Structure formats: C-alpha cells, structure tokens
C-alpha cells in the first residue's frame, strides 16, 4: 500500500518537475513547481521523515514559492501589457496541475483516513533532527547561515542603491 502511494506521489513529482522545465512562461512553471514540492513533501512523509515533510510545505511551498509568485507579479506590473498578462495564464494549463493536485489530496485523505502506518524504515522526529544539526553538522549550519547573511547584505545593498538613484533623478 505504502509503496503504491510512494510511486504515485513520485510520478506526480516527476511529471510536474518535467513540466516546470518545459513550460515556456514563468507562471505556468511556478505553479507546477509548487505541485512538485508538495509531492516531494508527501514522499518525505511516507518515508517516515514527517518533520522534513511538514517543513518542505511550510518553507518551500508556503514561503519561497509565494516570494517567486510575488516577484513575477511585480515584474508583470511594471512593463507587461494587459494582452501579455492575458496570454500568460490560459485556462487549459490549469487542467494538469488541478488533476495532479487532486491525486495528492486523495492520497492525503487516504493516509489520514486509514492512518497508514509506514512499516517504518526509520521514523525521524524533530529532536533527532535538532541534535544532528547542532552536533555533527554544526559547521554546515554555520556556513549556511554565513551564506544567507551575505545574500541578505547583498540584497540590501542593491535595494538601497536603487532607491538612492531614484531620489536623485
């Protein structure tokens, strides 16, 4: 049963990831990417990594992808014409994502309704993740935080110069 669910979720992930690359415009690709992330979340869940599964949805699907959509909307606001906007999202392209999302939703319902207990490969709880992150992988965490800080300062610098230039003109 679990392996069937994993295969279904995995094929949803693969198909939607392929669509991300093949879609010609950004919004189509983004919507498929959200779907792909949700599918990966389900796979994590089925493998017993519940913590990673929920974080996948919170951080990637819930926060980072919203930022992506936000940026695309902002660009759209600036220079695209209404005709371009209209051509960007066609009703037809919604058939794919909705169908794949329905499959994922029915898997979720099935899992919750039967409380499918994974013949645990290894159930990982939040405590283990924390101990690993602040134990053997401490260096990696610190390096990642340095990288993020550098990115933050860079973004701040770029944004600040932009506003100054606007004020001068």
């Amino acid at each position, binding site marked *: 049963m679990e392996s069937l669910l994993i295969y279904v979720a995995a094929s949803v992930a693969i198909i939607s990831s392929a669509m991300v690359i093949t879609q010609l415009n950004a919004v189509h690709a983004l919507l498929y990417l959200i779907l792909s992330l949700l599918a990966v979340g389900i796979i994590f869940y089925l493998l017993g990594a519940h913590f990673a599964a929920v974080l996948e949805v*919170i951080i990637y699907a819930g926060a980072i992808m919203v930022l992506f959509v936000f940026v695309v909307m902002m660009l759209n606001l600036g220079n695209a014409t*209404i005709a371009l906007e209209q051509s960007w999202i066609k009703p037809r392209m919604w058939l794919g994502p909705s169908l794949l999302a329905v499959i994922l939703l029915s898997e979720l319902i099935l899992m919750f309704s039967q409380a499918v207990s994974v013949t645990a490969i290894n159930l990982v709880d939040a405590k283990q993740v924390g101990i690993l992150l602040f134990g053997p992988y401490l260096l990696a965490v610190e390096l990642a935080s340095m990288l993020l800080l550098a990115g933050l300062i860079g973004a701040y610098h770029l944004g600040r110069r932009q506003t100054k230039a606007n004020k001068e003109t």
Partner: protein
Amino acid sequence: MTEPINQIGTWIDIIGILSSVMLVAALLIWVERRMIGIWQDRLGPNRLGPLGLMQVAADMIKIFFKEDWIPPFADKAVFVLAPMIIMVTILTAFAVVPFAPGIGIIDFNFGLLYFLALSSLSVYSVVLGGYASNNKYALLGAVRAAAQTISYEVFMALSLMGVVMLSGTFNLRDIVEAQRNGWFCLSQFLGLFLFIVAVVAESHRTPFDLPEAEHEIIAGFHIEYSGMKFGMFFIGEYLSVTLSSAMIVTLFFGGWLGPEFLPPLFWFCFKTSIWILFFVLLRASLPRPRYDQLMSFGWKFMLPLALINLLVTGGLVLWMES
C-alpha cells in the same frame, strides 16, 4: 516514538466538526455586523427573526442567487479555483484542532507545524485570485497580500517556538496537557501578543486588511468577484478567524482545560468564542495603518521581539533544567 498519527475521530466527528465549523462561520456574518453595531452605538441587523438572527439565512439566499459573473478579461480557470483554495486549506487545517479529549479528527505529532503549513498555503487563494482577475486594483491587492503574509509568517512561527520549548512537543494535544500547571498565556505573554498580531495579518482582518483596503484599492483582490465566489472568500475569512481563535485557545489558554463542573468541549468552545469576539472588537476599534508602516512594524519591531522572546525562553528553560 509513538505512532505519528493516532486517528481519534470517526465519521461522526468529521461530519460534526465540519458542519459546526461551517455553521459558526456563517453565523459570524450576523455576529460581526450585530456586535460592531452595538459597539458603535447603533442597532445592526435586527429585523429578521429573533435578534435579527435570520439575517444569516437572508444573506445566504441573496448570495446564492446573485449572478455569478466571471469577467471576460479574467482567466476563468484560476478565477474559479482561487476561492476554493482558502476553503480547502482552512477546513483541512481543522483536522488537527484538539476540541476535547477524544473529540477531533486526527492526533498528529507535528500538528502545530501542520497548522502553520496549511495557513501559509492559504495565501495562494488571495494571490491567484488577484492575479487571475486581471485588474490593476486586484493585482495591487494580491501583491500586498503576498508581501504582508510572507513578512508576518516569519515571526508567527517564531512566536510559537516558546510554547514548543516549554511543552517539548509539536503535538497539539500534548501542548494542551502541558498547560495543566499554568496556561502559557502567563509564561508566554509576549508570544501570545506576537501570535495574535500575526494571525490577524495572516487572515487579512482589519487593522491589517490592506490587501482589500476599500479607500485606496476599492476592494483589492476580490474586486471582480461576485455571488458565491465572493461568498467563499468571505466565509474563508471567517473560517480563518475561527481557526485562529481555536489555535490561540489551544496554544495559550489551556485548550479544553477548565473547571470540572462543565465538559471539556464546553470550555474549548467558550474560550474560542471569546477570542472570536475579540477579533470582531479589534475590527470595530482599530484604524488601518499605512502600508509601509505595516511592513516596517513587522520587520523592525515584531521580528526582533520574537527573537528576544525565543532567546529568553530558551535561556530560562535551560536554567530551570540545570
């Protein structure tokens, strides 16, 4: 580690919870208008039925029979899909809400994170709705909603980590049980304040209803919506108020805990209704901030406060243990 999901609800629980949550959301249409009326020293809807209670039915009939207009310039499929997202995500989030011992749908070990995940997915409803309407005001509303939700989500999760540290679990039922010796609203009052502000911003209620600010962008993201599609946004907002109140009660006010002479379910519903009324009062009493004020308030005041709360709570937990 025990089973990740203990199913505690039967079909009766699921149907009961679904219908009562929908009923509460529909009743809130009347409650909000009536209470704001009373607080603003006017009557509010008081003509239909006892206390004007039939106003709900009248509104429902009206909204169902209104023309469900889809603008020709809109993107039809997304336009139809967007209002459903908020209903589906918020209603699914109710699955982890612990109503009382033995009443609820699932008992999930990461229930708190599940709530955060679904409430962060619900923003797509507003964003896609504004985008698909293909209207400049709707798009502005959607852009505002995206930026606002991202900003307030950050410290929404951080404000709850104090509760997680004190109770040592993400499981909502265990968090309620951990409050037997004192509700977390006392030890985590800062977290409570942050969480309230965050959920108000997350559900786009006044004073944080900038995405639909009537005086500057008319109605924001739902400007092109009419009939039951508008109704879904409308009910979705009330559902999210109900969910937020239920979560505040679960996390900070001892959930179903209360004096023994009344059943636990009563205490849960009682506390939740008080918080719902608080949200209504908030709308009646506070003005809307400017958009840049909203953003800088979030990043420059609330986020540092959340981090300080996290640090102090962590330090105290370690100090108490040693």
